[in-house]
């Protein structure tokens, strides 16, 4: 591979990209799994908001959320990676992935609050706008990554630009340590991108 001519190397990279895209297209969730997942999420929402567990209320909720979930099944769960059976997926998500994410985000939010308080008292700010690269491709994944970056210590997402080789995020950093895009990406994203790549495209 190392002795390959340059034009051939570009060609091989393009073929690899095409291959990745086709894997993405073929590994989407099947329609009935998308429908069931949307239905379960909407039904949980319904039960929490209405708060009645009588048979009349529950049957009304099941019918209504079923109709909505049938038409809106592509909206919420299109970007989830396909792996294993549906029940395994839900159990993994509820018992392992979600608590992991919540614990990481809770500690980072606490740290960011303390950091902002320190900046307010001492005014030792050193702002810069840096550009970092992410490997996520889907809408849901990028949205969650941008939200998490806004809540992590000292950073605020300004804009998102999507290119073919990945997604570029412009981040306003209140206390810039480095301007190198890769090092800045490691410091800013941390474990969150690794976690999101297990779940979303």
């Amino acid at each position, binding site marked *: 591979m190392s002795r390959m001519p340059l034009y051939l190397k570009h060609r091989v990279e393009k073929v690899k990209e095409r291959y990745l895209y086709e894997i993405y297209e073929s590994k989407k969730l099947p329609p009935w799994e998308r429908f069931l997942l949307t239905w379960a999420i909407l039904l949980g*929402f319904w039960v*929490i*908001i209405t*708060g009645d567990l009588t048979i009349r209320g529950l049957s009304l909720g099941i019918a209504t959320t079923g109709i909505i979930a049938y038409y809106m099944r592509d909206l919420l769960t299109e970007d989830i990676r396909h792996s294993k059976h549906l029940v395994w997926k839900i159990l993994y998500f509820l018992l392992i992935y979600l608590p992991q994410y919540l614990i990481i985000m809770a500690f980072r*939010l*606490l740290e*960011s*609050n303390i950091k*902002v*308080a320190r*900046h*307010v008292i001492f*005014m030792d*700010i*050193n*702002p*810069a*706008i*840096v*550009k970092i690269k992410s490997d996520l491709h889907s809408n849901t994944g990028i*949205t969650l990554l*941008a*939200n998490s970056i*806004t*809540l992590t210590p*000292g950073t*605020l*997402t*300004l*804009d998102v*630009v999507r290119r073919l080789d990945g997604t570029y995020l*412009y981040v*306003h950093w*209140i206390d*810039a340590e480095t*301007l190198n895009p890769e090092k800045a990406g490691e410091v800013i994203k941390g474990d969150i991108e690794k976690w999101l790549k297990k779940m979303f495209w």
Partner: protein
Amino acid sequence: MIYLLFLVFGYSIMVFGALGLVRFPDLYTRLHAATKCDTGGMIGIILGLVFLTDASLFIKAKMFLLLFLIAMINPMVSHAIARGAYKMGIKPQVKVDMYGWDNP
């Protein structure tokens, strides 16, 4: 007694956020104070209220739902404000502005 800890934490974080809104030099650094301190302080206050009330389980679940919605929507709104302000032409006081290099 644990609710008092959460409530005091939330209120003090909110106070620091309001102080930062006054003291920071330009719009983008003020948004830092507004977003993070509002989210963290609101999470502290709502957790304190969950421990404080004797209400039924559904009301506590509704409070957690509110917390989730706040934590999702607050960063989105701050992103929208920052991007809109940059497009309108408010220049940030920064050393290096890579967004300005790419969008002259």
